[in-house]
């Protein structure tokens, strides 16, 4: 970790290890038939940053995310990962160097937690003892007791626990980039807060480039180093949280209105 950056987290400034790869979107459009899902998207995620893509359903935020690990390829423009366009990458290599966490976790129901977490290391033919110790270490890191959980199956875990395993799995082969697609959308609010705090702790420890998709503006403000607001496939605003709260575009106001609403 030669380079160090800083991260502001819950009002405190931390020195942060920076060891990810940068991601650059250059004029990226994506069409399905006549429908323009992404409209000339251009932005840069420097190594180690957490960019939150905020938007309503259908705004194109998940589509944009899937461009990074080449689950989708741009109709025009290009996405550069570590300086190389995704369509130039060996897709298997690219995907194994990117961690991916989705809402339904996508854990393999027929694998134990250990094998789920160790999946990419196993695909990469790490020796079994090394996979096992890595799985232990990661479970500990996401707050699950390895002794208790390694041998279990996903169906024996609660939603929040599965989500933690999903994060551990994404970190397993020490990827340079992490992608999160509304990872905490399906858990209760208390668990969500815990998972968000965990995410911030992890970010401080591992400092990877992260892109995080959500429709929850509070979540975006809590965890983003910058927030990109997507509306109808266009990037409307790209700003740090402190700037974002001052934004005056209609879509930004629509999202920020949710913050001001009185509870009673």
């Amino acid at each position: 970790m030669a380079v160090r950056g800083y991260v502001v987290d819950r009002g405190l400034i931390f020195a942060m290890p920076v060891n990810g790869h940068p991601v650059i979107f250059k004029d990226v459009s994506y069409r399905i038939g006549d429908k323009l899902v992404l409209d000339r998207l251009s932005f840069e995620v420097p190594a180690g940053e957490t960019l939150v893509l905020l938007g309503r359903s259908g705004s194109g935020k998940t589509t944009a995310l899937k461009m990074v690990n080449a689950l989708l390829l741009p109709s025009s423009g290009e996405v550069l990962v570590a300086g190389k366009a995704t369509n130039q990458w060996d897709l298997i290599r690219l995907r194994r160097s990117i961690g991916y966490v989705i809402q339904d976790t996508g854990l393999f129901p027929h694998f134990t937690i250990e094998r789920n977490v160790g999946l990419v290391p196993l695909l990469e033919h790490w020796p079994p003892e090394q996979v096992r110790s890595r799985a232990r270490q990661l479970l500990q890191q996401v707050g699950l007791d390895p002794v208790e959980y390694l041998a279990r199956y996903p169906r024996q875990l609660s939603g929040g626990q599965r989500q933690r395993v999903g994060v551990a799995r994404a970190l397993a082969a020490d990827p340079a980039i992490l992608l999160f697609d509304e990872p905490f959308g399906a858990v209760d609010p208390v668990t969500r807060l815990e998972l968000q705090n965990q995410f911030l702790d992890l970010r401080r420890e591992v400092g990877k480039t992260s892109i995080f998709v959500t429709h929850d503006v509070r979540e975006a403000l809590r965890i983003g180093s910058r927030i990109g607001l997507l509306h109808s496939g266009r990037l409307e605003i790209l700003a740090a949280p402190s700037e974002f709260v001052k934004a005056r575009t209609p879509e930004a106001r629509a999202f920020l209105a949710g913050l001001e609403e009185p509870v009673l």
Partner: protein
Amino acid sequence: MRPGLSSEIIDLTIEHVILVAIAMAIAIAISVPAGILLTRRAGMRPWVLGFANVMQTIPSLALFGFLIPVPLIGGIGKQTAIVALVLYALLPILRNTMTGILSVDPAVRESAVAMGMTGWELLWQVEVPLAAHTILAGIRIATVTTVGTATIAAAIGGGGLGVFIFRGIASVDTAEILAGAVPASILALISDGGLGWIEKRLAVA
């Protein structure tokens, strides 16, 4: 009971089992890979399933009859019987293999691809294990049906327990018919029970 009947029952039961086993081995070897291929080539589905469907609708006695004049695979004897049994067994295995793989949770498939699994890794580590109990259910249905259908093989000289049944019908001898029918039913029950047990063990909640 006429003398020598019990040893004949044993011989013909063994012959029956061998007939069914060979037919099922061939049917599985064709249908499982074909079913997997169909999950990758949606355009081929109506053609292949259509063919297998048509095979199922042909009355079994007629199918055995149709095959007799066909060169290479036809004629009188076991070979023709096996071909007919294979044709019957294709559909349930084919359909269950396809359904089993297509019903794997899309989130699981997507995360497998996103984690950098190759096509083969996705198939062997994720899709086939998760579809295994559905595929096996197809094999079980096909096996039970084949045990019954194989009794007709005797009509074209294929041997097996059907020999008793046809002989019994010709000589109006109920005991002879039962000597074929009872062991055939028991075979069907055993294969159903055995394969059902394995199927349950493969099920993933």
